[in-house]
Protein backbone atom coordinates (compact mmCIF):
# COMPACT_ATOMS: atom_id res chain seq x y z
CA UNK A 1 0.00 0.00 0.00
CA UNK A 2 1.29 3.46 -0.79
CA UNK A 3 1.20 6.51 1.47
CA UNK A 4 -1.96 7.88 -0.12
CA UNK A 5 -3.99 4.96 1.09
CA UNK A 6 -2.34 4.51 4.47
CA UNK A 7 -1.88 8.09 5.58
CA UNK A 8 -4.69 10.43 6.58
CA UNK A 9 -2.36 13.38 7.10
CA UNK A 10 1.17 14.00 5.95
CA UNK A 11 2.93 17.31 6.31
CA UNK A 12 6.33 18.11 4.88
CA UNK A 13 8.19 21.06 6.27
CA UNK A 14 4.90 22.70 7.19
CA UNK A 15 5.80 26.18 8.41
CA UNK A 16 3.84 29.23 9.44
CA UNK A 17 5.26 32.67 10.08
CA UNK A 18 2.82 35.47 10.84
CA UNK A 19 3.59 38.92 9.40
CA UNK A 20 7.31 38.18 9.26
CA UNK A 21 7.37 38.46 13.04
CA UNK A 22 5.99 35.38 14.76
CA UNK A 23 7.07 31.83 13.99
CA UNK A 24 3.92 29.95 14.90
CA UNK A 25 5.06 26.64 13.44
CA UNK A 26 8.63 25.61 12.60
CA UNK A 27 9.11 23.17 9.71
CA UNK A 28 7.03 20.20 10.75
CA UNK A 29 6.85 16.69 9.34
CA UNK A 30 3.77 15.10 10.79
CA UNK A 31 2.29 11.77 9.82
CA UNK A 32 -1.09 10.46 10.91
CA UNK A 33 -2.00 6.97 9.78
CA UNK A 34 -5.54 6.18 8.73
CA UNK A 35 -7.71 4.55 11.35
CA UNK A 36 -5.86 5.98 14.34
CA UNK A 37 -6.94 8.39 17.03
CA UNK A 38 -4.13 10.91 17.03
CA UNK A 39 -3.69 13.47 19.78
CA UNK A 40 -1.79 16.67 19.14
CA UNK A 41 -0.76 17.89 22.53
CA UNK A 42 1.13 20.87 23.78
CA UNK A 43 0.80 23.88 26.04
CA UNK A 44 -1.19 26.95 25.02
CA UNK A 45 0.49 28.79 22.17
CA UNK A 46 2.40 25.72 21.01
CA UNK A 47 1.01 25.97 17.47
CA UNK A 48 -1.72 23.33 17.58
CA UNK A 49 -4.49 25.55 16.25
CA UNK A 50 -2.23 27.03 13.58
CA UNK A 51 -1.34 23.53 12.41
CA UNK A 52 -5.01 22.54 12.30
CA UNK A 53 -5.99 25.70 10.44
CA UNK A 54 -3.48 24.87 7.74
CA UNK A 55 -4.73 21.29 7.62
CA UNK A 56 -8.26 22.52 6.89
CA UNK A 57 -7.21 25.31 4.50
CA UNK A 58 -8.06 28.35 6.59
CA UNK A 59 -4.43 29.43 6.55
CA UNK A 60 -1.77 29.01 3.92
CA UNK A 61 1.59 27.57 4.90
CA UNK A 62 4.50 29.99 4.68
CA UNK A 63 6.54 26.99 3.52
CA UNK A 64 5.99 23.28 3.07
CA UNK A 65 2.72 21.55 2.37
CA UNK A 66 -0.03 19.60 4.04
CA UNK A 67 -1.48 16.55 2.34
CA UNK A 68 -4.79 15.44 3.75
CA UNK A 69 -6.34 12.16 2.59
CA UNK A 70 -3.76 12.11 -0.17
CA UNK A 71 -4.49 15.60 -1.55
CA UNK A 72 -2.78 18.92 -0.96
CA UNK A 73 -4.96 21.13 1.22
CA UNK A 74 -5.56 24.71 0.02
CA UNK A 75 -8.28 27.29 0.71
CA UNK A 76 -9.95 26.25 -2.56
CA UNK A 77 -9.95 22.51 -1.83
CA UNK A 78 -13.71 22.44 -1.18
CA UNK A 79 -14.08 18.89 -2.50
CA UNK A 80 -11.43 17.65 -0.10
CA UNK A 81 -13.08 19.39 2.85
CA UNK A 82 -16.27 17.45 2.08
CA UNK A 83 -14.41 14.39 3.41
CA UNK A 84 -13.31 16.10 6.61
CA UNK A 85 -15.25 17.07 9.71
CA UNK A 86 -13.63 20.01 11.47
CA UNK A 87 -14.38 21.39 14.90
CA UNK A 88 -12.63 24.69 15.63
CA UNK A 89 -11.63 25.69 19.13
CA UNK A 90 -14.21 28.01 20.69
CA UNK A 91 -16.31 27.84 17.54
CA UNK A 92 -18.43 30.77 16.37
CA UNK A 93 -21.61 30.08 14.44
CA UNK A 94 -24.26 32.42 13.00
CA UNK A 95 -25.91 33.75 16.17
CA UNK A 96 -29.29 34.45 14.60
CA UNK A 97 -29.69 30.91 13.20
CA UNK A 98 -31.20 27.98 15.02
CA UNK A 99 -29.23 24.71 15.23
CA UNK A 100 -31.63 23.12 12.74
CA UNK A 101 -31.09 25.90 10.20
CA UNK A 102 -27.35 25.87 10.63
CA UNK A 103 -26.90 22.10 10.52
CA UNK A 104 -29.22 21.82 7.51
CA UNK A 105 -27.11 24.41 5.71
CA UNK A 106 -23.88 22.60 6.58
CA UNK A 107 -25.48 19.37 5.35
CA UNK A 108 -26.41 20.97 2.04
CA UNK A 109 -22.93 22.44 1.70
CA UNK A 110 -21.54 18.96 2.27
CA UNK A 111 -23.51 17.61 -0.66
CA UNK A 112 -26.51 16.13 1.14
CA UNK A 113 -30.02 16.61 -0.23
CA UNK A 114 -32.46 18.57 1.92
CA UNK A 115 -34.14 15.33 2.96
CA UNK A 116 -30.86 13.59 3.85
CA UNK A 117 -29.68 16.66 5.71
CA UNK A 118 -32.88 16.83 7.76
CA UNK A 119 -32.57 13.17 8.70
CA UNK A 120 -28.98 13.65 9.85
CA UNK A 121 -29.87 16.83 11.72
CA UNK A 122 -32.58 15.04 13.70
CA UNK A 123 -30.23 12.18 14.63
CA UNK A 124 -27.34 14.44 15.59
CA UNK A 125 -29.44 16.83 17.66
CA UNK A 126 -30.74 13.87 19.63
CA UNK A 127 -27.34 12.19 20.00
CA UNK A 128 -25.65 15.40 21.12
CA UNK A 129 -28.40 16.30 23.54
CA UNK A 130 -29.45 19.47 21.72
CA UNK A 131 -33.07 18.55 21.01
CA UNK A 132 -34.44 20.85 23.69
CA UNK A 133 -32.54 23.78 22.22
CA UNK A 134 -33.29 22.96 18.59
CA UNK A 135 -35.55 25.98 18.12
CA UNK A 136 -33.41 28.48 20.02
CA UNK A 137 -31.03 30.95 18.43
CA UNK A 138 -27.39 29.86 18.57
CA UNK A 139 -26.53 33.25 20.05
CA UNK A 140 -28.23 32.20 23.29
CA UNK A 141 -26.20 28.99 23.65
CA UNK A 142 -23.69 28.23 26.42
CA UNK A 143 -20.09 27.37 25.52
CA UNK A 144 -20.75 23.67 26.01
CA UNK A 145 -23.81 23.75 23.75
CA UNK A 146 -21.87 25.57 21.03
CA UNK A 147 -19.14 22.93 21.23
CA UNK A 148 -21.71 20.16 20.93
CA UNK A 149 -23.26 21.94 17.95
CA UNK A 150 -19.80 22.15 16.41
CA UNK A 151 -19.36 18.43 16.91
CA UNK A 152 -22.73 17.80 15.26
CA UNK A 153 -21.73 20.00 12.31
CA UNK A 154 -18.47 18.12 11.90
CA UNK A 155 -20.35 14.81 11.76
CA UNK A 156 -23.17 15.88 9.45
CA UNK A 157 -21.96 13.97 6.39
CA UNK A 158 -20.20 11.16 8.21
CA UNK A 159 -16.68 12.18 7.08
CA UNK A 160 -13.74 9.80 6.94
CA UNK A 161 -11.44 12.18 8.83
CA UNK A 162 -12.29 14.23 11.90
CA UNK A 163 -10.09 17.11 13.01
CA UNK A 164 -11.22 18.45 16.35
CA UNK A 165 -9.43 21.36 18.00
CA UNK A 166 -9.84 21.30 21.77
CA UNK A 167 -13.14 19.38 21.70
CA UNK A 168 -13.44 19.24 25.48
CA UNK A 169 -12.74 22.87 26.25
CA UNK A 170 -15.61 24.62 27.97
CA UNK A 171 -17.33 21.36 28.86
CA UNK A 172 -18.27 20.20 32.33
CA UNK A 173 -16.89 16.83 33.55
CA UNK A 174 -19.94 14.94 32.28
CA UNK A 175 -19.72 16.65 28.89
CA UNK A 176 -16.00 15.91 28.73
CA UNK A 177 -16.54 12.26 29.43
CA UNK A 178 -19.28 12.12 26.76
CA UNK A 179 -16.95 13.68 24.20
CA UNK A 180 -14.03 11.40 25.00
CA UNK A 181 -16.37 8.39 24.79
CA UNK A 182 -17.60 9.71 21.45
CA UNK A 183 -14.04 10.08 20.15
CA UNK A 184 -13.28 6.51 21.17
CA UNK A 185 -16.43 5.32 19.42
CA UNK A 186 -15.79 7.33 16.26
CA UNK A 187 -12.16 6.24 16.20
CA UNK A 188 -13.23 2.64 15.60
CA UNK A 189 -14.28 3.44 12.03
CA UNK A 190 -12.44 6.58 11.01
CA UNK A 191 -9.37 8.67 11.62
CA UNK A 192 -9.70 11.19 14.42
CA UNK A 193 -7.18 13.93 15.11
CA UNK A 194 -7.73 15.91 18.29
CA UNK A 195 -5.74 18.65 19.91
CA UNK A 196 -5.82 19.32 23.59
CA UNK A 197 -3.73 20.35 26.52
CA UNK A 198 -5.76 18.13 28.84
CA UNK A 199 -3.47 15.15 29.07
CA UNK A 200 -6.04 12.93 30.74
CA UNK A 201 -8.21 13.17 27.62
CA UNK A 202 -5.31 12.07 25.43
CA UNK A 203 -4.59 9.19 27.76
CA UNK A 204 -8.18 8.01 27.52
CA UNK A 205 -8.67 8.13 23.76
CA UNK A 206 -5.49 8.36 21.69
CA UNK A 207 -3.40 5.64 20.06
CA UNK A 208 -0.71 8.02 18.87
CA UNK A 209 0.41 11.44 19.89
CA UNK A 210 2.36 14.38 18.57
CA UNK A 211 3.87 16.80 21.04
CA UNK A 212 4.14 20.41 19.94
CA UNK A 213 6.15 22.86 21.93
CA UNK A 214 6.86 26.44 20.92
CA UNK A 215 5.94 25.66 17.34
CA UNK A 216 8.12 22.54 17.07
CA UNK A 217 7.02 18.93 16.91
CA UNK A 218 9.25 17.38 19.54
CA UNK A 219 7.69 13.94 19.65
CA UNK A 220 5.48 11.90 17.37
CA UNK A 221 4.70 8.27 17.91
CA UNK A 222 2.64 5.84 19.90
CA UNK A 223 1.28 6.85 23.26
CA UNK A 224 2.44 3.58 24.76
CA UNK A 225 5.99 4.29 23.65
CA UNK A 226 5.90 7.78 25.08
CA UNK A 227 4.73 6.40 28.41
CA UNK A 228 7.27 3.60 28.36
CA UNK A 229 10.04 6.17 28.24
CA UNK A 230 9.07 7.48 31.62
CA UNK A 231 7.79 4.30 33.17
CA UNK A 232 8.54 4.54 36.86
CA UNK A 233 8.36 1.98 39.63
CA UNK A 234 6.80 4.25 42.18
CA UNK A 235 3.60 3.20 43.94
CA UNK A 236 1.55 5.89 45.58
CA UNK A 237 -0.85 4.78 48.31
CA UNK A 238 -3.38 6.93 50.09
CA UNK A 239 -3.85 5.56 53.59
CA UNK A 240 -5.96 6.24 56.62
CA UNK A 241 -4.91 5.08 60.09
CA UNK A 242 -1.73 4.81 62.11
CA UNK A 243 1.01 4.08 59.59
CA UNK A 244 3.89 4.15 62.05
CA UNK A 245 4.20 0.34 62.31
CA UNK A 246 3.89 -0.08 58.58
CA UNK A 247 6.74 2.39 58.06
CA UNK A 248 8.89 0.46 60.55
CA UNK A 249 8.23 -2.79 58.70
CA UNK A 250 8.88 -1.07 55.41
CA UNK A 251 12.30 0.11 56.54
CA UNK A 252 13.48 -3.50 56.52
CA UNK A 253 11.66 -4.52 53.38
CA UNK A 254 14.13 -5.63 50.75
CA UNK A 255 11.78 -5.10 47.76
CA UNK A 256 11.52 -1.36 48.26
CA UNK A 257 14.30 1.10 47.61
CA UNK A 258 12.66 3.90 49.57
CA UNK A 259 9.56 4.80 51.55
CA UNK A 260 8.34 8.35 51.73
CA UNK A 261 5.44 9.30 54.00
CA UNK A 262 3.70 12.57 53.31
CA UNK A 263 0.31 12.18 54.99
CA UNK A 264 -1.96 10.81 53.70
CA UNK A 265 0.24 9.65 50.79
CA UNK A 266 2.85 6.95 50.99
CA UNK A 267 5.24 6.78 48.05
CA UNK A 268 7.15 3.55 47.72
CA UNK A 269 9.90 3.20 45.14
CA UNK A 270 10.32 -0.44 44.20
CA UNK A 271 13.78 -1.88 43.66
CA UNK A 272 14.82 -2.43 40.08
CA UNK A 273 13.76 -5.88 38.95
CA UNK A 274 11.30 -6.38 41.77
CA UNK A 275 8.29 -8.41 40.59
CA UNK A 276 5.55 -5.77 40.61
CA UNK A 277 2.49 -7.99 41.09
CA UNK A 278 4.07 -10.07 43.86
CA UNK A 279 5.44 -6.99 45.58
CA UNK A 280 2.07 -5.25 45.52
CA UNK A 281 0.42 -8.39 46.88
CA UNK A 282 2.86 -8.44 49.75
CA UNK A 283 2.34 -4.75 50.37
CA UNK A 284 -1.45 -5.06 50.52
CA UNK A 285 -1.13 -7.93 52.98
CA UNK A 286 0.99 -5.74 55.28
CA UNK A 287 -1.57 -2.93 55.04
CA UNK A 288 -4.36 -5.33 55.98
CA UNK A 289 -2.33 -6.70 58.87
CA UNK A 290 -1.79 -3.19 60.25
CA UNK A 291 -5.54 -2.47 60.03
CA UNK A 292 -5.04 0.50 57.75
CA UNK A 293 -7.66 1.74 55.34
CA UNK A 294 -6.44 1.90 51.76
CA UNK A 295 -8.15 4.87 50.12
CA UNK A 296 -6.44 4.79 46.74
CA UNK A 297 -3.60 3.21 44.79
CA UNK A 298 -1.85 5.09 42.05
CA UNK A 299 0.72 3.50 39.83
CA UNK A 300 1.32 5.90 37.06
CA UNK A 301 -1.85 7.93 36.60
CA UNK A 302 0.50 10.87 36.19
CA UNK A 303 2.59 8.99 33.67
CA UNK A 304 1.16 10.97 30.83
CA UNK A 305 1.94 14.24 32.55
CA UNK A 306 5.40 13.02 33.53
CA UNK A 307 6.10 11.92 29.98
CA UNK A 308 4.92 15.24 28.68
CA UNK A 309 6.96 17.31 31.12
CA UNK A 310 10.05 15.15 30.72
CA UNK A 311 9.92 15.47 26.97
CA UNK A 312 9.59 19.23 27.26
CA UNK A 313 12.53 19.32 29.65
CA UNK A 314 14.65 17.18 27.31
CA UNK A 315 13.78 19.47 24.47
CA UNK A 316 14.66 22.55 26.46
CA UNK A 317 18.06 21.06 27.41
CA UNK A 318 18.61 19.94 23.84
CA UNK A 319 17.84 23.38 22.56
CA UNK A 320 20.25 24.96 25.03
CA UNK A 321 22.98 22.48 24.11
CA UNK A 322 22.50 23.08 20.43
CA UNK A 323 22.55 26.83 21.06
CA UNK A 324 25.84 26.43 22.95
CA UNK A 325 27.44 24.21 20.33
CA UNK A 326 26.42 26.70 17.69
CA UNK A 327 28.04 29.51 19.69
CA UNK A 328 31.25 27.57 20.17
Amino acid at each position, binding site marked *: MNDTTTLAIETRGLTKIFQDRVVALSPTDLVVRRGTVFGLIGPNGAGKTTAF*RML*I*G*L*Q*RPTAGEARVLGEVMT*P*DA*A*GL*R*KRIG*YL*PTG*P*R*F*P*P*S*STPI*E*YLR*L*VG*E*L*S*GLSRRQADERVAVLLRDLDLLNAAGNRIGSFSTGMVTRL*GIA*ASLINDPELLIWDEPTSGLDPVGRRQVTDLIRFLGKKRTVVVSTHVLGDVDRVCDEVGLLYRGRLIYSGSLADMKRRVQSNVVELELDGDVERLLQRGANWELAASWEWNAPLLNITLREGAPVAATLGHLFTMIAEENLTLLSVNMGSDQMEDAFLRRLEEDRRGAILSDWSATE
Partner: protein
Amino acid sequence: MMSRTAVRALGQAEMTAITRSWLVRGWCGFAVIAAILPMLSATAQDDNVSTLLGGWLIIYFIPSAILAAVFGASTISQDAEIAADSFLTRAVTRWDYVVAKLSSRAAVVALIHLCATIPMLFLSARWGLNDSTTVGLLMTSFITGMMLVFLTAVGVCTGAVLRNLALAVVVIMCAVAAEGLIFGFLEIKEFSPTSVLNELPETIRGDTTTWQELRVLLAFTAASLAGAAGAALAFQRREF
Protein backbone atom coordinates in the same frame (compact mmCIF):
# COMPACT_ATOMS: atom_id res chain seq x y z
CA MET B 1 -13.62 27.08 -8.78
CA MET B 2 -17.14 27.98 -7.77
CA SER B 3 -19.96 25.69 -6.72
CA ARG B 4 -23.50 26.68 -7.64
CA THR B 5 -24.90 24.53 -4.83
CA ALA B 6 -22.74 26.26 -2.26
CA VAL B 7 -23.55 29.75 -3.58
CA ARG B 8 -27.28 28.99 -3.63
CA ALA B 9 -27.30 27.47 -0.12
CA LEU B 10 -25.20 30.29 1.32
CA GLY B 11 -27.26 32.91 -0.49
CA GLN B 12 -30.50 31.54 0.94
CA ALA B 13 -29.02 31.46 4.42
CA GLU B 14 -27.79 35.03 3.99
CA MET B 15 -31.24 36.19 2.90
CA THR B 16 -32.77 34.60 6.00
CA ALA B 17 -30.17 36.30 8.19
CA ILE B 18 -30.78 39.64 6.47
CA THR B 19 -34.50 39.54 7.19
CA ARG B 20 -33.59 39.27 10.88
CA SER B 21 -31.15 42.18 10.74
CA TRP B 22 -32.15 45.33 12.61
CA LEU B 23 -30.12 47.40 10.16
CA VAL B 24 -32.31 46.21 7.29
CA ARG B 25 -35.53 46.62 9.26
CA GLY B 26 -34.50 50.17 10.14
CA TRP B 27 -33.57 50.83 6.53
CA CYS B 28 -36.98 49.62 5.33
CA GLY B 29 -38.65 51.97 7.84
CA PHE B 30 -36.52 54.86 6.63
CA ALA B 31 -37.28 54.02 2.99
CA VAL B 32 -41.03 54.01 3.63
CA ILE B 33 -40.87 57.44 5.31
CA ALA B 34 -38.56 58.74 2.60
CA ALA B 35 -41.06 57.55 -0.02
CA ILE B 36 -44.16 59.04 1.62
CA LEU B 37 -42.81 62.53 2.33
CA PRO B 38 -42.21 63.63 -1.28
CA MET B 39 -45.64 62.32 -2.26
CA LEU B 40 -47.24 64.51 0.39
CA SER B 41 -45.04 67.42 -0.51
CA ALA B 42 -45.85 67.04 -4.23
CA THR B 43 -49.52 67.74 -3.59
CA ALA B 44 -48.72 70.88 -1.61
CA GLN B 45 -45.95 72.55 -3.61
CA ASP B 46 -45.85 74.60 -6.75
CA ASP B 47 -42.50 73.26 -7.95
CA ASN B 48 -42.31 70.94 -10.88
CA VAL B 49 -42.01 67.25 -10.04
CA SER B 50 -38.53 67.00 -11.57
CA THR B 51 -37.15 69.74 -9.32
CA LEU B 52 -38.98 68.43 -6.26
CA LEU B 53 -37.93 64.81 -6.74
CA GLY B 54 -34.39 65.76 -7.68
CA GLY B 55 -34.07 67.47 -4.29
CA TRP B 56 -35.79 64.69 -2.38
CA LEU B 57 -33.66 62.02 -3.98
CA ILE B 58 -30.49 63.72 -2.74
CA ILE B 59 -31.95 63.83 0.78
CA TYR B 60 -32.95 60.17 0.44
CA PHE B 61 -29.69 59.11 -1.18
CA ILE B 62 -27.17 60.35 1.41
CA PRO B 63 -28.44 58.27 4.39
CA SER B 64 -29.16 55.34 2.03
CA ALA B 65 -25.58 55.52 0.77
CA ILE B 66 -24.25 55.35 4.33
CA LEU B 67 -26.59 52.44 5.09
CA ALA B 68 -25.49 50.62 1.92
CA ALA B 69 -21.83 51.12 2.83
CA VAL B 70 -22.39 49.85 6.38
CA PHE B 71 -24.49 46.96 5.08
CA GLY B 72 -21.75 45.98 2.64
CA ALA B 73 -18.79 46.52 4.94
CA SER B 74 -20.31 44.64 7.87
CA THR B 75 -20.77 41.47 5.86
CA ILE B 76 -17.14 40.42 6.01
CA SER B 77 -15.44 42.67 8.56
CA GLN B 78 -17.84 41.60 11.33
CA ASP B 79 -18.55 38.04 10.23
CA ALA B 80 -15.00 36.90 9.48
CA GLU B 81 -14.67 34.51 12.42
CA ILE B 82 -18.15 33.13 11.88
CA ALA B 83 -17.37 32.70 8.20
CA ALA B 84 -14.18 30.80 9.04
CA ASP B 85 -15.63 28.53 11.71
CA SER B 86 -19.01 27.95 10.13
CA PHE B 87 -18.51 27.88 6.37
CA LEU B 88 -14.93 28.05 5.10
CA THR B 89 -14.09 24.85 6.95
CA ARG B 90 -16.81 23.08 4.92
CA ALA B 91 -17.03 22.35 1.21
CA VAL B 92 -17.03 26.06 0.38
CA THR B 93 -14.42 28.12 -1.44
CA ARG B 94 -13.83 31.76 -0.63
CA TRP B 95 -15.24 32.71 -4.03
CA ASP B 96 -18.47 30.87 -3.18
CA TYR B 97 -18.71 32.75 0.08
CA VAL B 98 -18.04 36.23 -1.31
CA VAL B 99 -20.31 35.75 -4.33
CA ALA B 100 -23.16 34.49 -2.14
CA LYS B 101 -22.75 37.31 0.36
CA LEU B 102 -22.36 40.06 -2.20
CA SER B 103 -25.13 38.96 -4.52
CA SER B 104 -27.67 38.54 -1.73
CA ARG B 105 -26.77 41.88 -0.18
CA ALA B 106 -26.83 43.67 -3.54
CA ALA B 107 -30.21 42.10 -4.28
CA VAL B 108 -31.61 43.27 -0.94
CA VAL B 109 -30.29 46.81 -1.46
CA ALA B 110 -31.78 46.95 -4.96
CA LEU B 111 -35.09 45.55 -3.74
CA ILE B 112 -35.47 48.01 -0.87
CA HIS B 113 -34.52 50.88 -3.15
CA LEU B 114 -36.87 49.95 -5.99
CA CYS B 115 -39.76 49.22 -3.64
CA ALA B 116 -39.32 52.67 -2.08
CA THR B 117 -38.47 54.82 -5.09
CA ILE B 118 -40.75 53.52 -7.85
CA PRO B 119 -44.00 54.25 -5.96
CA MET B 120 -42.44 57.51 -4.68
CA LEU B 121 -41.52 58.70 -8.15
CA PHE B 122 -44.69 57.67 -9.96
CA LEU B 123 -47.18 58.77 -7.29
CA SER B 124 -45.39 62.09 -6.80
CA ALA B 125 -45.49 62.63 -10.55
CA ARG B 126 -49.19 61.86 -10.59
CA TRP B 127 -50.08 64.18 -7.71
CA GLY B 128 -47.69 67.06 -8.45
CA LEU B 129 -47.02 69.39 -11.35
CA ASN B 130 -45.87 66.70 -13.70
CA ASP B 131 -43.03 67.42 -16.10
CA SER B 132 -41.57 63.90 -15.97
CA THR B 133 -41.46 61.03 -18.42
CA THR B 134 -42.03 57.37 -17.55
CA VAL B 135 -38.63 56.37 -18.90
CA GLY B 136 -37.03 59.26 -17.01
CA LEU B 137 -38.60 58.15 -13.73
CA LEU B 138 -37.60 54.52 -14.25
CA MET B 139 -34.04 55.45 -15.23
CA THR B 140 -33.77 57.70 -12.17
CA SER B 141 -34.74 54.81 -9.94
CA PHE B 142 -32.36 52.40 -11.70
CA ILE B 143 -29.43 54.81 -11.69
CA THR B 144 -29.72 55.69 -8.00
CA GLY B 145 -30.26 52.00 -7.23
CA MET B 146 -27.13 51.05 -9.16
CA MET B 147 -25.16 53.66 -7.23
CA LEU B 148 -26.33 52.06 -3.97
CA VAL B 149 -25.37 48.61 -5.26
CA PHE B 150 -21.97 50.07 -6.16
CA LEU B 151 -21.58 51.38 -2.60
CA THR B 152 -22.55 47.95 -1.24
CA ALA B 153 -19.92 46.28 -3.43
CA VAL B 154 -17.30 48.82 -2.37
CA GLY B 155 -18.43 48.18 1.22
CA VAL B 156 -17.93 44.43 0.88
CA CYS B 157 -14.52 45.04 -0.68
CA THR B 158 -13.44 47.43 2.07
CA GLY B 159 -14.82 45.08 4.73
CA ALA B 160 -12.69 42.29 3.28
CA VAL B 161 -9.57 44.43 3.70
CA LEU B 162 -10.28 46.27 6.97
CA ARG B 163 -11.44 44.49 10.09
CA ASN B 164 -12.80 47.65 11.74
CA LEU B 165 -16.32 48.43 10.50
CA ALA B 166 -16.34 52.12 11.48
CA LEU B 167 -13.00 52.68 9.77
CA ALA B 168 -14.22 50.80 6.70
CA VAL B 169 -17.30 53.04 6.40
CA VAL B 170 -15.23 56.20 6.81
CA VAL B 171 -12.79 54.98 4.14
CA ILE B 172 -15.67 54.23 1.75
CA MET B 173 -17.24 57.65 2.22
CA CYS B 174 -13.92 59.43 1.75
CA ALA B 175 -13.12 57.32 -1.31
CA VAL B 176 -16.50 57.97 -2.91
CA ALA B 177 -16.29 61.69 -2.18
CA ALA B 178 -12.78 61.82 -3.64
CA GLU B 179 -13.89 59.81 -6.65
CA GLY B 180 -16.79 62.23 -7.24
CA LEU B 181 -14.44 65.21 -7.11
CA ILE B 182 -11.82 63.67 -9.36
CA PHE B 183 -14.21 62.41 -12.03
CA GLY B 184 -16.25 65.60 -11.78
CA PHE B 185 -13.07 67.62 -12.34
CA LEU B 186 -12.11 65.37 -15.26
CA GLU B 187 -15.64 65.76 -16.59
CA ILE B 188 -16.16 61.98 -16.66
CA LYS B 189 -19.53 62.46 -15.07
CA GLU B 190 -20.68 58.85 -15.43
CA PHE B 191 -18.39 57.85 -12.57
CA SER B 192 -19.17 60.80 -10.34
CA PRO B 193 -22.09 60.20 -7.94
CA THR B 194 -22.29 63.94 -7.21
CA SER B 195 -22.63 64.85 -10.89
CA VAL B 196 -25.15 62.08 -11.45
CA LEU B 197 -27.27 63.24 -8.50
CA ASN B 198 -27.16 66.85 -9.69
CA GLU B 199 -28.43 65.78 -13.10
CA LEU B 200 -31.39 63.78 -11.79
CA PRO B 201 -34.00 66.50 -12.53
CA GLU B 202 -32.93 66.42 -16.19
CA THR B 203 -33.12 62.63 -16.22
CA ILE B 204 -36.62 62.76 -14.68
CA ARG B 205 -37.77 65.22 -17.34
CA GLY B 206 -36.30 63.04 -20.07
CA ASP B 207 -33.85 65.76 -21.11
CA THR B 208 -30.95 63.32 -21.14
CA THR B 209 -30.48 60.82 -23.93
CA THR B 210 -30.96 57.09 -23.40
CA TRP B 211 -27.28 56.60 -24.27
CA GLN B 212 -26.22 59.05 -21.53
CA GLU B 213 -28.37 57.21 -19.00
CA LEU B 214 -27.12 53.81 -20.13
CA ARG B 215 -23.54 55.04 -19.83
CA VAL B 216 -24.15 55.97 -16.22
CA LEU B 217 -25.77 52.61 -15.53
CA LEU B 218 -22.93 50.75 -17.25
CA ALA B 219 -20.31 52.81 -15.43
CA PHE B 220 -21.72 51.96 -12.01
CA THR B 221 -22.32 48.33 -13.03
CA ALA B 222 -18.67 48.08 -14.06
CA ALA B 223 -17.56 49.82 -10.86
CA SER B 224 -19.72 47.42 -8.82
CA LEU B 225 -18.19 44.43 -10.58
CA ALA B 226 -14.73 45.85 -9.91
CA GLY B 227 -15.70 46.22 -6.24
CA ALA B 228 -16.92 42.62 -6.21
CA ALA B 229 -13.70 41.40 -7.81
CA GLY B 230 -11.68 43.41 -5.31
CA ALA B 231 -13.70 41.91 -2.45
CA ALA B 232 -13.14 38.39 -3.78
CA LEU B 233 -9.39 38.96 -4.21
CA ALA B 234 -9.00 40.55 -0.78
CA PHE B 235 -10.99 37.73 0.83
CA GLN B 236 -8.99 35.15 -1.09
CA ARG B 237 -5.77 36.48 0.46
CA ARG B 238 -7.14 36.74 3.95
CA GLU B 239 -5.94 34.44 6.72
CA PHE B 240 -8.22 33.14 9.46
